[in-house]
Every structure is written in C-alpha cells, then in structure tokens.
C-alpha cells in the first residue's frame, strides 16, 4: 500500500520513520532499531553483543544512547529500542559518555589485560572501544577472576573464559543461526560462563563463525592461534570455492602464507557466515605435500622435471593420441578452477576437436537442469514452498543450509523434503516425503496430489532445490521426480545444486560433453574399453570421487597416457605419466560461478608454490606446444574473450561487477522438463537398499591435507534403522559383511534413527573401509545384504 501525501504529492513510504541522530535527520524503517539506523550514518554507537544478522538481546549494555522523551532525556539501549517517528537520539552527550564509560569499566573489571599475547589484540572490538569510548583508567584494584586458560571446546575452537564478556554472540549464533545449541551459558549468576555439556564437544559445522564474531579473544581457532598479528596481515576479498555456494570471504596472509579466512557479509549469499570446511581448508594450500615442479613418469617413478620437458611430453602424448583418432583424447574435471581456467581448457579442446569432456564426475545431474527456470538463493528463501530433492544441504552445501533453515525458522517458507534419509533440514521441514531409492518419482507424484499439498503449492512461488542425493542410484530417478514437481507446480523455479565449487561455471565455459558425446561415465567406459589413449585430469580425482571405483580402475589400466593437472599427488595421479603442478586457491585470480549462477571474483593473495601455475596458463602454453595457439596473453585478455564468447558470462563484462555481490549469469528462456515415470525394481525383503551420500568431513584432498580438519574425518560405517539392526541380529558397533552382486566388504554397523527402514546409509569416502566396490554404476539402485560375521 502506498500513501500519497496530498501536499507534497509524492509517494510516501508507509514504513518510513524520520528520526534525528545527533541533530542530523535519518530515514529509518518501521521496526528498525536505533543502532541499525545509526549504522547508516557516521555516528558509531559502540557495541559488543549486537549483531545485525542475529536477534538483539541487550546483553552488554554498551550501546547506551540518549533519547528525548516527554520526561526529558533518557538513557536507552539502542540495540533494543525501535525507532519511532520524530525520535531525537543523541550519542555523544556527556551523560551518554558517562554511561558508556561506566559499562566499559565494568566489562574491563574482570577482563584480563593480556592483549600483548592475545590473538585478538589489534583487531579487538573491546580493545578498540576501550580506547574510543572507555574511561581510560580503571579503579578496579582487586584480584580478577581466574579460570583455566584456554580449554578446547571442540577439535577446532578454544575457549578462554577469563576473556569472555558474556555477550551471548557465540551461544546465540550456535542456537539461532546454526541450530547446534552445543554451547550455552552455564552456572548463570556470579559465575556465568560459556561451556559445552561436559564431554560433549562443540562439534558444529559452523563453529568457526563464533570465533569470527567473538568481540574479544575468548574464542580462538586452532589454525590461526599464534600464527600472525592482525597488523601483519595482508588481505583481499575473494570467493570460497570449497563447494558451489560461493561464500564471500576475505583471504588473509602473512609472510606469503595463507593464515585465515573470514566471512564477508553479502546479502545474496552467505550473510557473513562460512562453514568450517571452507574456513579452514586453506591449510591444504600451505601443505608440504604441494607439488612444486612438474613430474614425468620415468617408468619406475614420478621424477621432477622442467616445465618445458613436461609440456613437450604432454603435447607429444596428446598429438600421438589425436593422430590415431580425435575421440581418443578426453578431459575430466575443471570444476575446481576458475571460469577462466575452464574456458582456456575448453578453447584448447575446441581447437583440438576434443568433444569428450566433463567437469562432473558421474555424481551430478545432466546440465539440462540449468535450462529450466532458475531460482537464486534469495528467491529460494523467499518462496512460499521449498521442495528439497537434494543431497543433505547441511553436509554438502552448509551455508545454503543456513539460509534455507533461516527461511523456515522465520516462517517465510515451508519446506517439503523429499528424501530417502533424514537430513539436517528434516527437523525444519513442514512435511517430509520418504521414499525408497528408485521410487522417488512415484513418491513425489503421490505426495503432491494430496489436497493439503496442492493447497500449499498454490500459495505462492515454489522453488525446488535439486541435486544428487544418492550416489548409489541412477540420476534419471531424480530427474523424473523433478519432472513430477513440474507437473504439480508448473511455475516452479529450480535451484540446481551440483557438486564442486565452480561446476556451473565450468559447464557454462564449455567443459561439458560436446556434440552429443558422452558424460564422465561414458568417457570412463570408453577408456575401460580401450578407446581412450590419452586422459587429461583437470584437478579431478576420479579414483576418490567417481562412485564406481571399479570402473575407474579398469579405465586407468587401459588408458595409454594419463595426464594430471593438480596441486597434490592423489589416488588418481599417483601412476600418471605426467603431473603438472597447478596453482591453488589463493594463488590465482579469476572469476567463479556459484550454484545460482552468480559470477564473482577469486583473488590471488600469495605466490604460487614452487613453479606451479594456474590451469589457464598451462592450457595456453600447451596450446602453443601443440601448435594451436589459443591466443591468450593475460588473464584480462582471457576474461574478455570469455565474456565475449559465452553469452552466459556477458553480464560480468566489467571486472568490478564481479566484486562484492557479484553478477548473475545471463539466463536463457527457460525450457520445461518432462519425463516418463519409471520405478526401480522392488527390493527383495531380505535386502536393504543403499543410500550413499557425502558428509562434510570426508577424504576430500583439501580436508585430508588440512591438519586441523583431517582429525575430524570419521571411519566408514554402515548405518541402519534400529529396527533393521534388531532384525539383522547384531549389536551396534560390530563388524558385518555387506554384500552386493558378488562383491562384499566388512564394515562396522551402527544404528541411526534418521535412516528409514529398508534402507542402509553409507557415507561416501571415509577413512578405513573402502565402500565403493559395492557401487556399480550400471545398476539403477544397489541392494545389499547384511550378514553377521560368524
């Protein structure tokens, strides 16, 4: 509703509230807090507990200001007082100063003055505000309180209770934002302190955020403790590419080594939050295992060599293979690099006529999902209904989980979860539709035809979050279920969630099957049949990432020449013929594209290790060696070629536009999806149907080579419903034999209430037992028989 002011004849915003702060008029919005309105002016109100992304609690009382009332000026807490029309606020009067100084003196009464040895010193809100708003001197001569110096409250986070000022930021974050209320105020009263439950660690996937928002040095994180002083840090804004959410970060380095990531608050994506994996896996960039020189296989070992030799060898291998047949060269990977990396390789592939390329590794969805009507993260979280047909967002796309959870918590959206297993969002789902893998299309059709569901879908915008939730299942089942959603809600928008940081950018840049050639699995099948002479791995580790390890094994034995461009040695390139060292995250610039198609910049902060180079540079040099120069002279040059050649990237023509919020890809006219409904064969009642999915901490290269995270990876186990456990007749924690189609593995069994009856859940890629022998990519679903070991 708009109200037209008859005198001014202009449209007046009904939510506009005019207030005055220190004599200057400020336009505020109805319901806004004084401190939030003041943050848009030059008048800074000191604060410790207030955080714009969390509810206000008025805990620290530092933000006292003076407000004119009918009874004269009054001191109020500006983070708890909403604006009202005509309000007069003063933030610098003598009485405000006295009040703020008083609060600070009390906060400092028990705060140890160990700033010289405190990691927060130099960037500490308490230190800064003690200078700017404090009394300058303390009258407190008594003994301060003492607690045991930092105690580890999780594998990553340390808590120093002496420094804590009880602002409630970390506990509020854990409860409100992350939904892991594992830290809380205990012994409230004179001895109030933040603690976990005894012996239950603060094992939240988001624990690093509490360290970032702690206004003092009470919470510190292992990877950064005593690594640098804030005034020694250099920093640059970048985008995290650990997963495809694309959180905005600040990359900080000291002495040419990455030391810390901090979340940057941008509205459309991460709101300042990061997950712990994204925040701390920078350690892998500093890993001593990083490759520093090109390696060439001498027949007995991978030996260091020069770039010129390595490039010449690579070029010869590619030339030989192409001379044989243009279809005997294939490229896998590219989703971990930048858009420019992917485009340079796509250009090279174009020049050489290599059609067989795929940046997904058989664990994603057909790129046709990008041609459907697309939703952004914001549109998803503003939709009346969010249908989840996706992997467990908390495990795979943690910050998207925070956003969707927030939408459900604040009652903006209702979640209909379609899942074969309970996920992190199940407790927040309005309705949960369970199904047995292979039967989801039918389940979606049945569920969405219930009157209650129909009514909900008709309420407003529907967004479906779609991805591969189960690696032991053919992707067609997900696509068919998606088609059923389109039948029930034709105007639905899609948020595709595929794996790996820049998968969307890589596909758009051209690292996707060309001219109707096959996808990664077809490429591996062709290789296994001896049809691929030269296989190029572009930052890809199919041995770890492709669900069917048997297939990869067969493919690799048949391939004549295996070329790997990677940062480290992994299971896939251990026996490669050539390994070219690639520059890692933080060592190269460019742009990346997140799952919603947002193009934002990644920035170089440190020098690449040894002689490693960005992928695009390797492609350029290789093109020269091969005599098909792709004509790239610099990153800017490459970027302008990309923006000019690929319509999707056109909006990012101005390099500045990829900073901050970034720029959304150009969208084409959406098509719709339809599909026949098919069902997997019924399960034999003695068997359990397998659900295989990823968890946050698995054997991903960047996690394994980050010392702080490596210890968190758990051993592989198979999880079944407690009732099924009883039926199998084994005790929790014992080893069982799990068999499928002639293969079997021995693995520990555990019960889990979130696993549905008739199914078994195997987390993918964990330490200990390799579960992949059970996964056969050619079968639609995998049924396993679990037997006790006698």
């Amino acid at each position, binding site marked *: 509703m708009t109200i037209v002011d008859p005198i001014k004849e202009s449209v007046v915003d009904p939510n506009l509230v005019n207030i005055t702060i220190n004599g200057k008029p400020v336009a505020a919005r109805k319901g806004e807090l004084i401190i939030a309105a003041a943050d848009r002016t030059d008048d800074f109100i000191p604060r410790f507990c207030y955080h714009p992304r969390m509810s206000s609690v008025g805990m620290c009382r530092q933000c006292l200001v003076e407000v004119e009332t009918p009874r004269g000026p009054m001191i109020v807490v500006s983070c708890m007082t909403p604006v009202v029309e005509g309000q007069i606020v003063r933030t610098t009067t003598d009485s405000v100063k006295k009040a703020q100084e008083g609060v600070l003196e009390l906060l400092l009464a028990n705060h140890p003055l160990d700033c010289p040895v405190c990691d927060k010193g130099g960037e500490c809100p308490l230190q800064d505000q003690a200078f700017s708003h404090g009394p300058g001197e303390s009258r407190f001569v008594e003994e301060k309180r003492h607690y045991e110096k930092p105690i580890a409250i999780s594998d990553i986070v340390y808590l120093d209770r002496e420094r804590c000022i009880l602002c409630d930021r970390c506990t509020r974050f854990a409860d409100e934002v992350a939904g892991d*209320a594992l830290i*809380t105020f*205990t012994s409230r009263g004179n001895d109030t302190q933040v*603690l976990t*439950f005894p012996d*239950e660690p603060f094992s939240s996937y988001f624990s690093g955020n509490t360290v970032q928002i702690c206004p003092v040095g009470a919470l510190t994180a292992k990877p950064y403790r005593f690594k640098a002083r804030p005034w020694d840090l250099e920093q640059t804004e970048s985008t995290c590419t650990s997963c495809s959410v694309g959180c905005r970060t600040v990359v900080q380095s000291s002495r040419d080594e990455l030391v810390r990531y901090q979340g940057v608050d941008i509205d459309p994506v991460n709101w300042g939050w990061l997950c712990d994996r994204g925040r701390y896996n920078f350690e892998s960039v500093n890993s001593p295992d990083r490759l520093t020189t090109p390696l060439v296989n001498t027949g007995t070992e991978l030996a260091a060599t020069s770039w010129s030799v390595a490039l010449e060898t690579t070029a010869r291998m590619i030339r030989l293979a192409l001379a044989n047949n243009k279809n005997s060269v294939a490229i896998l990977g590219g989703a971990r690099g930048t858009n420019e990396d992917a485009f340079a390789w796509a250009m090279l592939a174009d020049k050489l006529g290599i059609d067989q390329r795929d940046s997904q590794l058989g664990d994603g969805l057909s790129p046709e999902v990008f041609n459907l009507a697309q939703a952004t993260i914001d549109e998803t979280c503003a939709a009346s209904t969010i249908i989840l047909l996706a992997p467990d967002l908390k495990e795979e796309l943690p910050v998207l989980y925070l956003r969707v959870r927030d939408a459900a918590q604040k009652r903006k959206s209702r979640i209909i979860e379609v899942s074969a297993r309970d996920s992190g969002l199940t407790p927040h789902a309005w309705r949960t539709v369970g199904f047995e893998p292979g039967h989801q299309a039918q389940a979606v059709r049945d569920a969405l035809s219930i009157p209650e569901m129909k009514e909900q879908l008709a309420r407003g915008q529907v967004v479906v979050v779609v991805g591969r939730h189960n690696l032991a299942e053919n992707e067609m089942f997900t696509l068919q279920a998606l088609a059923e959603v389109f039948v029930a809600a034709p105007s639905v928008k899609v948020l595709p969630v595929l794996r790996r940081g820049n998968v969307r950018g890589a596909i758009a840049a051209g690292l996707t099957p060309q001219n109707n050639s096959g996808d990664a699995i077809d490429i591996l099948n062709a290789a296994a049949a001896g049809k691929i002479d030269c296989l190029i791995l572009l930052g890809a580790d199919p041995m770890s990432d492709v669900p069917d390890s048997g297939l990869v094994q067969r493919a690799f034995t048949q391939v004549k020449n295996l070329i790997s461009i990677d940062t480290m040695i992994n299971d896939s390139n251990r026996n490669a013929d050539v390994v070219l060292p690639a520059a890692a995250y933080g060592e190269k610039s460019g742009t990346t594209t997140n799952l919603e198609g947002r193009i934002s910049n990644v920035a170089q902060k440190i020098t690449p290790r040894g002689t490693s180079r960005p992928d695009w540079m390797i492609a350029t040099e290789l093109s020269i060696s091969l005599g098909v120069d792709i004509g790239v002279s610099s990153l800017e040059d490459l970027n302008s070629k990309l923006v000019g050649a690929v319509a999707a990237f056109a909006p990012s023509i101005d390099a500045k536009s990829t900073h901050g919020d970034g720029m959304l890809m150009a969208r084409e006219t959406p098509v719709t999806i339809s599909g026949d409904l098919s069902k997997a064969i019924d399960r034999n009642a003695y068997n359990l149907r397998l659900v295989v999915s990823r968890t946050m901490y698995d054997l991903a290269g960047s996690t394994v080579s980050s010392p702080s995270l490596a210890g968190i990876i758990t051993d592989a186990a198979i999880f079944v419903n407690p009732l099924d456990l009883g039926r199998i007749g084994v005790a929790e924690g014992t080893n069982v034999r799990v068999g499928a189609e002639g293969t079997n593995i021995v693995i520990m069994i555990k019960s889990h209430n979130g696993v549905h009856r008739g199914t078994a859940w195997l987390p993918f890629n964990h330490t200990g037992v390799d579960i992949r022998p059970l996964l056969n990519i050619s079968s639609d679903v995998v049924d396993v028989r679990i037997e006790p070991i006698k």
Partner: protein
Amino acid sequence: MSRLNETNTKSAREIIARYPRPKSALIPLLHLSQEQNGYITREAMQHLGELVGVTSAEVYGTATFYEMFKFEPVGKYLINICGTLSCALMGANELMHHAEKKLGVNAGGTTSDGMFTLAHAECQAACTEAPTLQVNYRYRLRVTPTDLDNLIDNLRDNKLKDEFPPHGVLAKVQQVIPADRAVGTKDPEDVNESPAWLDGKAAL
C-alpha cells in the same frame, strides 16, 4: 541407571503434555530426575534433552542456574546451616564446627556412608528463629548443639523418615493434574483460543 526409569519416563511425558512447548517442562523434569537419583546425573540431563527436544548443553545451562539442583552425589540428608548475620550472631559458626566434628566431615563434604552432606547456606529467612538449619530444605529452628546431635542420631536411626524424605524428594504425594488440563504440544503462536477447561473465563 541414571536416566529416568520407566515410571518416571511416563510421568515425564505427562508433565511435558501440560505445556505448549515441551522445553517448558524442563524444571519439573529436573526435579523428577533429582528425586529418582538424589542428584542430577549427566545421563539424566541427556535423557531430559531427548525428551523435550533440546541439546544436553541447554539442559545443563538451565539446571546449573539453580542452587538446589546438585551435580555431584549428595547424602541422603542435606544439612544446610545458615551462616548469615542473625544466625551468625546467635552461634551458627559454633553450630557448624560442632556439626563438622559430629559428622567427621568439613562443610561441603559428604559422610562416607552417604547419609549426610553438610553445607553452608545463606539466609534462610527465619531470622527471628536463629540459628536455623534445614534438612533437605525442611526447617529446624533455634538449633542448639544438643538439638543437632539428637537430630543427626535420629536421622541415622531412621526415626525421622516421615518428616524428612530423602534428598531430591519434593513432596510426599505426587501431584496429579487432570488429563484435560494438558495443553498438549502446540506452537504458542498457533494457539488462538483458550483451552476447553478455561471455558472462556480468561483469554490466553
């Protein structure tokens, strides 16, 4: 076993049903578990968290606010001797020393037979009757050292079991709330009419 036993789990579910939000039942449930075990065990807190749908840390945070919830085993009889001004003037310190000698433990300690825990207490709000003490929060007034000796002997001989139930027991008779008074789990924001038993007499 220090999770709630079967009977108490059943009572717990009844108590939870009285509140629109399950976690509102936490304090009564903590009492229930203290009544069962004599103190609040870790397993009990984890169990309560499961019952009302909060983390064990949240149960712990709530429970530790309250002085009367104990997290270490206490004796069957908790003797709190007031040490605040009126009682101190009337000989509370001497009384405490006497009790320490009699029981063979220092203030804050528990006798090896698990019968008694001796503790200092702040004002028990009976200054006119100083010095005072409480056994499991039940008063004894104008206590002399001889009174204390008799009290301890009688407690040990189980002669006062009707007056002083073991630590943790709140009431000798369990309160029963009619089932129709149970609000049942509801999101308070979804509640827009009064429960039936209120019969429109009061608005929510």
